Protein backbone atom coordinates (compact mmCIF):
# COMPACT_ATOMS: atom_id res chain seq x y z
CA UNK A 1 0.00 0.00 0.00
CA UNK A 2 1.57 3.27 -1.03
CA UNK A 3 1.73 6.18 1.41
CA UNK A 4 3.02 8.68 -1.12
CA UNK A 5 -0.16 10.76 -0.93
CA UNK A 6 0.10 11.28 2.84
CA UNK A 7 1.55 14.21 4.71
CA UNK A 8 4.81 13.60 6.63
CA UNK A 9 2.86 13.62 9.90
CA UNK A 10 0.42 11.06 8.61
CA UNK A 11 3.29 8.91 7.32
CA UNK A 12 4.96 9.02 10.75
CA UNK A 13 1.70 7.99 12.36
CA UNK A 14 1.32 5.08 9.96
CA UNK A 15 4.88 3.97 10.67
CA UNK A 16 4.38 4.24 14.44
CA UNK A 17 1.15 2.34 14.18
CA UNK A 18 2.74 -0.47 12.22
CA UNK A 19 5.64 -0.65 14.65
CA UNK A 20 3.29 -0.91 17.62
CA UNK A 21 1.12 -3.57 16.01
CA UNK A 22 4.16 -5.51 14.84
CA UNK A 23 5.73 -5.27 18.28
CA UNK A 24 2.60 -6.62 19.94
CA UNK A 25 2.43 -9.50 17.48
CA UNK A 26 6.08 -10.36 18.11
CA UNK A 27 5.57 -10.23 21.89
CA UNK A 28 2.55 -12.55 21.66
CA UNK A 29 4.31 -15.02 19.38
CA UNK A 30 7.46 -15.11 21.52
CA UNK A 31 5.39 -15.54 24.68
CA UNK A 32 3.41 -18.35 23.07
CA UNK A 33 6.57 -20.14 21.92
CA UNK A 34 8.44 -19.82 25.20
CA UNK A 35 5.40 -20.87 27.25
CA UNK A 36 4.84 -23.96 25.10
CA UNK A 37 8.48 -25.04 25.39
CA UNK A 38 9.11 -24.51 29.08
CA UNK A 39 8.14 -26.89 31.87
CA UNK A 40 5.51 -26.28 34.56
CA UNK A 41 8.22 -24.77 36.77
CA UNK A 42 9.30 -22.29 34.10
CA UNK A 43 9.25 -18.54 34.53
CA UNK A 44 6.09 -17.84 32.52
CA UNK A 45 4.22 -20.68 34.25
CA UNK A 46 5.25 -19.22 37.62
CA UNK A 47 4.07 -15.76 36.54
CA UNK A 48 0.74 -17.28 35.47
CA UNK A 49 0.42 -19.08 38.79
CA UNK A 50 1.14 -15.93 40.81
CA UNK A 51 -1.36 -13.93 38.74
CA UNK A 52 -4.01 -16.57 39.33
CA UNK A 53 -3.33 -16.48 43.04
CA UNK A 54 -3.79 -12.72 43.12
CA UNK A 55 -7.30 -12.90 41.67
CA UNK A 56 -8.36 -15.90 43.75
CA UNK A 57 -10.37 -13.83 46.28
CA UNK A 58 -12.17 -12.11 43.43
CA UNK A 59 -12.99 -15.42 41.77
CA UNK A 60 -14.21 -16.83 45.08
CA UNK A 61 -16.51 -13.84 45.50
CA UNK A 62 -17.80 -14.06 41.95
CA UNK A 63 -18.37 -17.78 42.27
CA UNK A 64 -20.46 -17.27 45.41
CA UNK A 65 -22.27 -14.26 43.98
CA UNK A 66 -23.57 -16.14 40.98
CA UNK A 67 -24.20 -19.35 42.92
CA UNK A 68 -27.98 -18.61 43.17
CA UNK A 69 -28.18 -18.15 39.40
CA UNK A 70 -26.19 -21.31 38.88
CA UNK A 71 -28.35 -23.24 41.30
CA UNK A 72 -31.53 -21.93 39.69
CA UNK A 73 -30.28 -22.98 36.29
CA UNK A 74 -29.35 -26.38 37.68
CA UNK A 75 -32.80 -26.74 39.27
CA UNK A 76 -34.47 -25.82 35.99
CA UNK A 77 -32.49 -28.37 34.02
CA UNK A 78 -33.03 -30.98 36.73
CA UNK A 79 -36.78 -30.48 36.49
CA UNK A 80 -36.64 -30.97 32.75
CA UNK A 81 -34.55 -34.07 33.16
CA UNK A 82 -36.75 -35.45 35.90
CA UNK A 83 -39.63 -35.55 33.45
CA UNK A 84 -37.65 -37.75 31.18
CA UNK A 85 -38.60 -41.23 32.19
CA UNK A 86 -35.78 -42.85 30.27
CA UNK A 87 -33.22 -40.73 32.03
CA UNK A 88 -34.73 -41.67 35.37
CA UNK A 89 -34.50 -45.34 34.54
CA UNK A 90 -30.93 -44.89 33.41
CA UNK A 91 -30.08 -43.32 36.77
CA UNK A 92 -31.71 -46.21 38.57
CA UNK A 93 -29.74 -48.60 36.44
CA UNK A 94 -26.56 -46.68 37.22
CA UNK A 95 -27.27 -46.86 40.94
CA UNK A 96 -27.69 -50.61 40.74
CA UNK A 97 -24.45 -50.93 38.83
CA UNK A 98 -22.79 -48.87 41.55
CA UNK A 99 -23.46 -51.58 44.06
CA UNK A 100 -22.06 -54.13 41.65
CA UNK A 101 -18.94 -52.04 41.04
CA UNK A 102 -18.39 -51.45 44.73
CA UNK A 103 -18.79 -55.15 45.34
CA UNK A 104 -16.22 -55.96 42.67
CA UNK A 105 -13.80 -53.44 44.13
CA UNK A 106 -14.37 -54.95 47.55
CA UNK A 107 -13.70 -58.44 46.27
CA UNK A 108 -10.54 -57.27 44.53
CA UNK A 109 -9.32 -55.62 47.72
CA UNK A 110 -10.03 -58.74 49.74
CA UNK A 111 -8.05 -60.86 47.31
CA UNK A 112 -5.10 -58.49 47.44
CA UNK A 113 -5.18 -58.33 51.23
CA UNK A 114 -5.24 -62.09 51.41
CA UNK A 115 -2.16 -62.37 49.21
CA UNK A 116 -0.08 -59.54 50.60
CA UNK A 117 0.84 -58.79 54.15
CA UNK A 118 1.20 -55.08 53.52
CA UNK A 119 -0.35 -52.92 50.86
CA UNK A 120 1.85 -49.82 51.24
CA UNK A 121 0.00 -47.59 48.80
CA UNK A 122 -3.45 -47.49 50.33
CA UNK A 123 -4.64 -44.10 49.14
CA UNK A 124 -7.15 -43.66 51.89
CA UNK A 125 -4.37 -43.83 54.49
CA UNK A 126 -1.52 -42.07 52.69
CA UNK A 127 -3.50 -39.02 51.61
CA UNK A 128 -5.58 -36.39 53.34
CA UNK A 129 -8.84 -35.65 51.56
CA UNK A 130 -9.14 -31.90 51.03
CA UNK A 131 -12.54 -30.71 49.74
CA UNK A 132 -12.20 -27.80 47.33
CA UNK A 133 -14.59 -25.54 45.48
CA UNK A 134 -14.11 -24.79 41.81
CA UNK A 135 -13.72 -21.01 41.72
CA UNK A 136 -12.47 -20.53 38.19
CA UNK A 137 -13.06 -22.30 34.94
CA UNK A 138 -11.29 -21.77 31.70
CA UNK A 139 -12.98 -18.96 29.74
CA UNK A 140 -12.63 -21.18 26.72
CA UNK A 141 -14.22 -24.61 26.38
CA UNK A 142 -11.05 -25.88 24.72
CA UNK A 143 -8.97 -26.11 27.89
CA UNK A 144 -9.59 -28.87 30.43
CA UNK A 145 -8.45 -27.00 33.52
CA UNK A 146 -10.08 -25.36 36.54
CA UNK A 147 -8.89 -23.31 39.49
CA UNK A 148 -9.80 -24.50 43.00
CA UNK A 149 -9.76 -22.62 46.29
CA UNK A 150 -7.21 -24.83 48.04
CA UNK A 151 -3.44 -24.52 47.78
CA UNK A 152 -0.17 -25.32 49.48
CA UNK A 153 -1.48 -23.81 52.74
CA UNK A 154 -3.93 -26.73 52.83
CA UNK A 155 -1.35 -29.38 51.99
CA UNK A 156 -2.10 -29.46 48.27
CA UNK A 157 1.00 -29.86 46.12
CA UNK A 158 1.70 -30.32 42.44
CA UNK A 159 0.79 -33.85 41.25
CA UNK A 160 -1.84 -34.35 43.96
CA UNK A 161 -4.59 -36.61 42.54
CA UNK A 162 -8.07 -35.07 42.36
CA UNK A 163 -11.37 -36.92 42.76
CA UNK A 164 -14.90 -35.92 41.88
CA UNK A 165 -18.27 -37.15 43.07
CA UNK A 166 -20.55 -39.09 40.75
CA UNK A 167 -23.62 -41.28 40.94
CA UNK A 168 -21.36 -44.28 41.41
CA UNK A 169 -19.22 -42.69 44.12
CA UNK A 170 -15.89 -40.89 43.90
CA UNK A 171 -13.79 -41.22 40.80
CA UNK A 172 -10.48 -39.86 39.59
CA UNK A 173 -10.93 -36.68 37.53
CA UNK A 174 -7.48 -35.14 37.28
CA UNK A 175 -4.33 -33.91 38.92
CA UNK A 176 -3.02 -30.66 40.37
CA UNK A 177 -0.64 -29.09 37.85
CA UNK A 178 -0.05 -25.74 39.52
CA UNK A 179 -0.18 -25.02 43.24
CA UNK A 180 -0.20 -21.59 44.83
CA UNK A 181 -0.62 -20.73 48.52
CA UNK A 182 -4.40 -20.30 48.40
CA UNK A 183 -5.42 -21.77 45.05
CA UNK A 184 -4.38 -24.43 42.58
CA UNK A 185 -4.97 -25.39 38.98
CA UNK A 186 -6.35 -28.85 38.25
CA UNK A 187 -5.91 -30.48 34.84
CA UNK A 188 -8.58 -33.03 34.04
CA UNK A 189 -7.87 -36.49 32.67
CA UNK A 190 -9.29 -35.31 29.34
CA UNK A 191 -6.27 -33.02 28.96
CA UNK A 192 -4.26 -34.63 26.15
CA UNK A 193 -1.06 -34.29 28.18
CA UNK A 194 -2.46 -36.54 30.91
CA UNK A 195 -1.97 -40.31 30.99
CA UNK A 196 -2.64 -42.73 33.84
CA UNK A 197 -1.39 -46.23 34.53
CA UNK A 198 -4.52 -48.33 35.11
CA UNK A 199 -5.62 -51.87 35.78
CA UNK A 200 -8.91 -53.53 34.96
CA UNK A 201 -10.70 -55.50 37.64
CA UNK A 202 -11.17 -59.18 36.68
CA UNK A 203 -8.46 -58.98 33.98
CA UNK A 204 -5.82 -61.03 35.78
CA UNK A 205 -3.89 -57.91 36.72
CA UNK A 206 -3.49 -56.52 33.22
CA UNK A 207 -1.82 -53.10 33.26
CA UNK A 208 -2.42 -50.45 30.62
CA UNK A 209 -2.09 -46.76 29.94
CA UNK A 210 -5.22 -44.59 29.97
CA UNK A 211 -5.29 -41.63 27.57
CA UNK A 212 -8.07 -39.37 26.26
CA UNK A 213 -9.25 -40.00 22.73
CA UNK A 214 -12.07 -37.47 22.57
CA UNK A 215 -13.98 -35.28 25.04
CA UNK A 216 -15.53 -37.67 27.55
CA UNK A 217 -13.94 -40.77 25.98
CA UNK A 218 -10.75 -42.61 26.84
CA UNK A 219 -8.83 -45.60 25.63
CA UNK A 220 -6.52 -47.97 27.47
CA UNK A 221 -3.58 -49.36 25.56
CA UNK A 222 -1.10 -52.04 26.50
CA UNK A 223 -3.49 -54.58 28.06
CA UNK A 224 -2.19 -58.05 27.08
CA UNK A 225 -4.35 -59.74 24.47
CA UNK A 226 -4.87 -62.80 26.65
CA UNK A 227 -6.27 -60.77 29.58
CA UNK A 228 -10.01 -61.36 29.92
CA UNK A 229 -11.65 -57.94 29.59
CA UNK A 230 -15.37 -57.46 29.18
CA UNK A 231 -17.81 -54.58 28.89
CA UNK A 232 -18.75 -53.16 32.26
CA UNK A 233 -15.51 -54.14 34.00
CA UNK A 234 -14.40 -51.43 36.44
CA UNK A 235 -11.08 -49.68 35.84
CA UNK A 236 -8.87 -48.26 38.59
CA UNK A 237 -5.44 -46.75 38.95
CA UNK A 238 -2.61 -49.27 38.92
CA UNK A 239 -0.16 -47.44 41.16
CA UNK A 240 2.48 -47.50 38.51
CA UNK A 241 2.65 -46.67 34.85
CA UNK A 242 4.37 -48.27 31.91
CA UNK A 243 7.72 -50.03 32.38
CA UNK A 244 7.04 -50.40 36.10
CA UNK A 245 7.71 -46.74 36.86
CA UNK A 246 6.06 -45.27 39.92
CA UNK A 247 2.90 -43.32 39.14
CA UNK A 248 1.76 -40.11 40.77
CA UNK A 249 -1.59 -41.84 41.29
CA UNK A 250 -1.82 -44.43 44.10
CA UNK A 251 -3.34 -47.79 43.38
CA UNK A 252 -7.06 -48.37 43.72
CA UNK A 253 -8.75 -45.10 42.71
CA UNK A 254 -11.84 -45.88 40.59
CA UNK A 255 -11.90 -44.23 37.16
CA UNK A 256 -14.67 -45.73 35.04
CA UNK A 257 -16.15 -48.72 33.28
CA UNK A 258 -15.04 -50.58 30.17
CA UNK A 259 -17.37 -49.84 27.24
CA UNK A 260 -15.59 -51.63 24.43
CA UNK A 261 -12.70 -53.94 23.66
CA UNK A 262 -10.88 -54.32 20.36
CA UNK A 263 -7.86 -56.20 19.05
CA UNK A 264 -6.68 -57.75 15.81
CA UNK A 265 -5.86 -61.40 15.19
CA UNK A 266 -2.11 -60.88 15.48
CA UNK A 267 -2.06 -58.13 18.11
CA UNK A 268 -0.27 -58.87 21.37
CA UNK A 269 -2.20 -56.17 23.19
CA UNK A 270 -5.79 -55.01 23.09
CA UNK A 271 -7.27 -51.52 23.11
CA UNK A 272 -10.02 -50.89 25.61
CA UNK A 273 -12.52 -48.01 25.56
CA UNK A 274 -13.56 -46.49 28.86
CA UNK A 275 -16.43 -44.32 30.05
CA UNK A 276 -15.40 -42.32 33.14
CA UNK A 277 -17.48 -42.28 36.31
CA UNK A 278 -17.22 -38.51 36.65
CA UNK A 279 -18.04 -35.80 34.13
CA UNK A 280 -15.94 -32.85 35.34
CA UNK A 281 -18.01 -30.29 33.43
CA UNK A 282 -20.90 -30.67 35.87
CA UNK A 283 -18.89 -30.42 39.08
CA UNK A 284 -18.82 -27.54 41.53
CA UNK A 285 -16.64 -29.25 44.13
CA UNK A 286 -13.66 -31.58 44.01
CA UNK A 287 -11.65 -33.56 46.55
CA UNK A 288 -7.89 -33.26 46.42
CA UNK A 289 -5.80 -36.12 47.80
CA UNK A 290 -3.08 -34.18 49.62
CA UNK A 291 -0.05 -36.43 50.31
CA UNK A 292 0.66 -36.88 53.99
CA UNK A 293 2.95 -39.93 54.10
CA UNK A 294 6.50 -40.14 52.83
CA UNK A 295 5.46 -42.63 50.18
CA UNK A 296 2.71 -40.34 48.92
CA UNK A 297 5.13 -37.41 48.75
CA UNK A 298 7.56 -39.55 46.80
CA UNK A 299 4.78 -40.35 44.35
CA UNK A 300 3.97 -36.67 43.92
CA UNK A 301 7.63 -35.93 43.28
CA UNK A 302 7.71 -38.43 40.41
CA UNK A 303 8.81 -36.52 37.31
Amino acid at each position, binding site marked *: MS*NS*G*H*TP*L*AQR*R*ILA*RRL*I*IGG*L*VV*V*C*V*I*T*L*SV*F*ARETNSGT*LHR*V*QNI*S*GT*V*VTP*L*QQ*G*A*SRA*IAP*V*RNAWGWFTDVLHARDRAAQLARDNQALRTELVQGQFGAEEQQRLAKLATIGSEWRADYAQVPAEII*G*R*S*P*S*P*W*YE*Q*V*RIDKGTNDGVIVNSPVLGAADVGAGLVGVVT*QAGPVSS*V*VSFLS*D*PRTSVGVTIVNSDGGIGLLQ*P*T*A*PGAFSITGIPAQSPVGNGDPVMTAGFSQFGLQSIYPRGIPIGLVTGVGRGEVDVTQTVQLSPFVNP*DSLAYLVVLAPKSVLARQRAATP
Partner: protein
Amino acid sequence: MSTRPSMMMSAAGASAGAPRVTVPPRVPAIIAIACVAVLLQVSVMPFLTVAQGMPDLLVCAVVSIAVFRGALVGAIVGAVAGLSVELLAPVGTLGALGLLYLVVGYALGRLCEREGVREFLPVVLFCVIGECVVQVGELAMQVLLARPLIAGDVAREVLAALILTGFIAVPIHVIIRKVLRAPRVIEPYRMPGDG
Protein backbone atom coordinates in the same frame (compact mmCIF):
# COMPACT_ATOMS: atom_id res chain seq x y z
CA MET B 1 -24.63 14.21 28.23
CA SER B 2 -23.67 14.92 24.67
CA THR B 3 -21.93 12.27 22.65
CA ARG B 4 -20.87 14.66 19.95
CA PRO B 5 -17.14 14.96 19.48
CA SER B 6 -15.40 18.12 20.50
CA MET B 7 -13.95 20.21 17.71
CA MET B 8 -10.26 20.91 18.07
CA MET B 9 -7.49 22.10 15.81
CA SER B 10 -4.83 19.43 15.47
CA ALA B 11 -1.23 20.26 14.55
CA ALA B 12 -1.65 18.82 11.09
CA GLY B 13 -4.98 20.42 10.63
CA ALA B 14 -3.63 23.80 11.68
CA SER B 15 -0.77 23.59 9.23
CA ALA B 16 -3.11 22.58 6.47
CA GLY B 17 -5.53 25.31 7.41
CA ALA B 18 -8.38 22.84 8.03
CA PRO B 19 -10.11 21.89 11.28
CA ARG B 20 -9.83 18.24 12.30
CA VAL B 21 -12.46 16.35 14.20
CA THR B 22 -11.01 14.49 17.12
CA VAL B 23 -12.06 13.29 20.53
CA PRO B 24 -10.42 13.10 23.93
CA PRO B 25 -8.88 9.65 24.19
CA ARG B 26 -10.31 8.90 27.67
CA VAL B 27 -7.52 6.45 28.36
CA PRO B 28 -8.59 5.81 31.98
CA ALA B 29 -12.07 4.88 30.77
CA ILE B 30 -10.65 2.48 28.19
CA ILE B 31 -8.39 0.87 30.81
CA ALA B 32 -11.32 0.57 33.21
CA ILE B 33 -13.50 -1.05 30.54
CA ALA B 34 -10.75 -3.51 29.66
CA CYS B 35 -10.10 -4.41 33.32
CA VAL B 36 -13.78 -4.97 34.08
CA ALA B 37 -14.22 -7.02 30.92
CA VAL B 38 -11.22 -9.21 31.76
CA LEU B 39 -12.34 -9.77 35.35
CA LEU B 40 -15.89 -10.65 34.31
CA GLN B 41 -14.58 -12.90 31.56
CA VAL B 42 -12.44 -14.96 33.96
CA SER B 43 -14.77 -14.85 36.97
CA VAL B 44 -18.37 -14.96 35.79
CA MET B 45 -18.60 -16.00 32.14
CA PRO B 46 -17.22 -19.54 32.57
CA PHE B 47 -20.18 -20.32 34.82
CA LEU B 48 -22.78 -19.03 32.36
CA THR B 49 -22.59 -21.79 29.80
CA VAL B 50 -25.34 -23.03 27.55
CA ALA B 51 -24.76 -26.18 25.50
CA GLN B 52 -21.09 -26.01 26.55
CA GLY B 53 -20.73 -22.62 24.86
CA MET B 54 -20.06 -19.44 26.79
CA PRO B 55 -20.54 -15.78 25.86
CA ASP B 56 -17.35 -13.88 25.07
CA LEU B 57 -17.71 -10.56 26.79
CA LEU B 58 -14.13 -9.65 26.02
CA VAL B 59 -14.53 -9.81 22.28
CA CYS B 60 -17.56 -7.50 22.55
CA ALA B 61 -15.53 -5.02 24.59
CA VAL B 62 -12.57 -5.15 22.21
CA VAL B 63 -14.79 -4.69 19.15
CA SER B 64 -16.68 -1.78 20.72
CA ILE B 65 -13.47 -0.04 21.75
CA ALA B 66 -12.05 -0.61 18.27
CA VAL B 67 -15.21 0.87 16.74
CA PHE B 68 -15.08 3.96 18.95
CA ARG B 69 -11.32 4.49 19.17
CA GLY B 70 -9.86 2.98 16.02
CA ALA B 71 -7.75 0.01 15.00
CA LEU B 72 -4.61 0.90 16.95
CA VAL B 73 -6.37 1.25 20.29
CA GLY B 74 -8.47 -1.82 19.53
CA ALA B 75 -5.36 -3.86 18.80
CA ILE B 76 -3.54 -2.72 21.94
CA VAL B 77 -6.57 -3.37 24.15
CA GLY B 78 -7.13 -6.73 22.48
CA ALA B 79 -3.55 -7.89 22.97
CA VAL B 80 -3.28 -6.74 26.58
CA ALA B 81 -6.73 -8.05 27.52
CA GLY B 82 -6.08 -11.41 25.85
CA LEU B 83 -2.78 -11.82 27.65
CA SER B 84 -4.44 -10.81 30.92
CA VAL B 85 -7.12 -13.48 30.53
CA GLU B 86 -4.45 -16.09 29.92
CA LEU B 87 -2.57 -14.93 33.01
CA LEU B 88 -5.59 -14.95 35.30
CA ALA B 89 -7.62 -17.92 34.09
CA PRO B 90 -6.65 -21.60 34.02
CA VAL B 91 -5.95 -21.94 30.32
CA GLY B 92 -3.14 -23.94 28.84
CA THR B 93 -1.47 -21.24 26.78
CA LEU B 94 0.03 -17.78 27.12
CA GLY B 95 0.09 -15.52 24.08
CA ALA B 96 -2.48 -17.27 21.91
CA LEU B 97 -5.52 -15.34 23.11
CA GLY B 98 -3.49 -12.12 23.10
CA LEU B 99 -2.69 -12.65 19.45
CA LEU B 100 -6.26 -13.54 18.53
CA TYR B 101 -7.86 -10.56 20.28
CA LEU B 102 -5.18 -8.32 18.77
CA VAL B 103 -6.15 -9.50 15.29
CA VAL B 104 -9.84 -8.97 16.06
CA GLY B 105 -9.30 -5.49 17.50
CA TYR B 106 -7.09 -4.36 14.65
CA ALA B 107 -8.99 -5.89 11.73
CA LEU B 108 -12.47 -4.81 12.79
CA GLY B 109 -11.23 -1.41 13.96
CA ARG B 110 -9.60 -0.88 10.57
CA LEU B 111 -12.77 -1.93 8.79
CA CYS B 112 -14.78 0.57 10.82
CA GLU B 113 -12.27 3.33 10.08
CA ARG B 114 -12.62 2.74 6.36
CA GLU B 115 -16.32 2.07 6.12
CA GLY B 116 -17.58 4.44 8.82
CA VAL B 117 -19.69 1.85 10.57
CA ARG B 118 -21.34 2.83 13.84
CA GLU B 119 -24.84 1.32 13.80
CA PHE B 120 -25.77 -1.43 16.22
CA LEU B 121 -26.47 -4.23 13.76
CA PRO B 122 -23.07 -4.18 12.07
CA VAL B 123 -21.39 -3.98 15.47
CA VAL B 124 -23.27 -7.09 16.61
CA LEU B 125 -22.19 -8.75 13.40
CA PHE B 126 -18.60 -7.66 14.04
CA CYS B 127 -18.74 -9.16 17.55
CA VAL B 128 -19.95 -12.47 16.13
CA ILE B 129 -17.27 -12.38 13.44
CA GLY B 130 -14.65 -11.54 16.08
CA GLU B 131 -15.81 -14.43 18.24
CA CYS B 132 -15.69 -16.66 15.18
CA VAL B 133 -12.06 -15.65 14.60
CA VAL B 134 -11.21 -16.36 18.25
CA GLN B 135 -12.92 -19.74 18.19
CA VAL B 136 -11.31 -20.79 14.93
CA GLY B 137 -7.92 -19.64 16.20
CA GLU B 138 -8.30 -21.60 19.40
CA LEU B 139 -9.50 -24.60 17.44
CA ALA B 140 -6.39 -24.40 15.29
CA MET B 141 -4.33 -24.21 18.48
CA GLN B 142 -5.98 -27.37 19.77
CA VAL B 143 -5.26 -29.15 16.51
CA LEU B 144 -1.62 -28.09 16.76
CA LEU B 145 -1.53 -29.43 20.31
CA ALA B 146 -2.88 -32.76 18.94
CA ARG B 147 -5.93 -32.66 21.16
CA PRO B 148 -8.63 -35.14 20.13
CA LEU B 149 -11.84 -33.37 19.11
CA ILE B 150 -15.31 -34.48 18.05
CA ALA B 151 -16.69 -32.45 15.17
CA GLY B 152 -20.26 -32.46 16.50
CA ASP B 153 -19.24 -31.22 19.94
CA VAL B 154 -16.98 -28.57 18.44
CA ALA B 155 -19.74 -27.32 16.14
CA ARG B 156 -22.24 -27.17 19.03
CA GLU B 157 -19.85 -25.30 21.32
CA VAL B 158 -18.81 -22.81 18.66
CA LEU B 159 -22.39 -22.18 17.57
CA ALA B 160 -23.54 -21.67 21.15
CA ALA B 161 -20.66 -19.28 21.81
CA LEU B 162 -21.46 -17.25 18.69
CA ILE B 163 -25.16 -16.96 19.55
CA LEU B 164 -24.52 -16.02 23.18
CA THR B 165 -21.91 -13.46 22.16
CA GLY B 166 -24.36 -11.95 19.70
CA PHE B 167 -26.94 -11.64 22.49
CA ILE B 168 -24.65 -9.71 24.82
CA ALA B 169 -23.08 -7.57 22.09
CA VAL B 170 -25.75 -4.84 22.08
CA PRO B 171 -25.84 -4.12 25.84
CA ILE B 172 -22.04 -4.18 26.00
CA HIS B 173 -21.83 -1.80 23.05
CA VAL B 174 -24.38 0.56 24.60
CA ILE B 175 -22.52 0.62 27.92
CA ILE B 176 -19.15 1.26 26.31
CA ARG B 177 -20.59 3.97 24.10
CA LYS B 178 -22.00 5.60 27.23
CA VAL B 179 -18.71 5.35 29.10
CA LEU B 180 -16.52 6.60 26.26
CA ARG B 181 -19.00 9.39 25.54
CA ALA B 182 -18.00 9.78 21.93
CA PRO B 183 -18.35 8.17 18.56
CA ARG B 184 -15.33 6.49 17.12
CA VAL B 185 -12.39 8.32 15.58
CA ILE B 186 -11.77 8.17 11.87
CA GLU B 187 -8.03 8.56 11.58
CA PRO B 188 -7.56 11.06 8.76
CA TYR B 189 -4.40 9.92 7.04
CA ARG B 190 -5.34 12.03 4.09
CA MET B 191 -5.98 15.50 5.40
CA PRO B 192 -8.34 17.95 3.76
CA GLY B 193 -6.34 20.05 1.33
CA ASP B 194 -3.56 17.47 0.95
CA GLY B 195 -4.30 17.22 -2.71
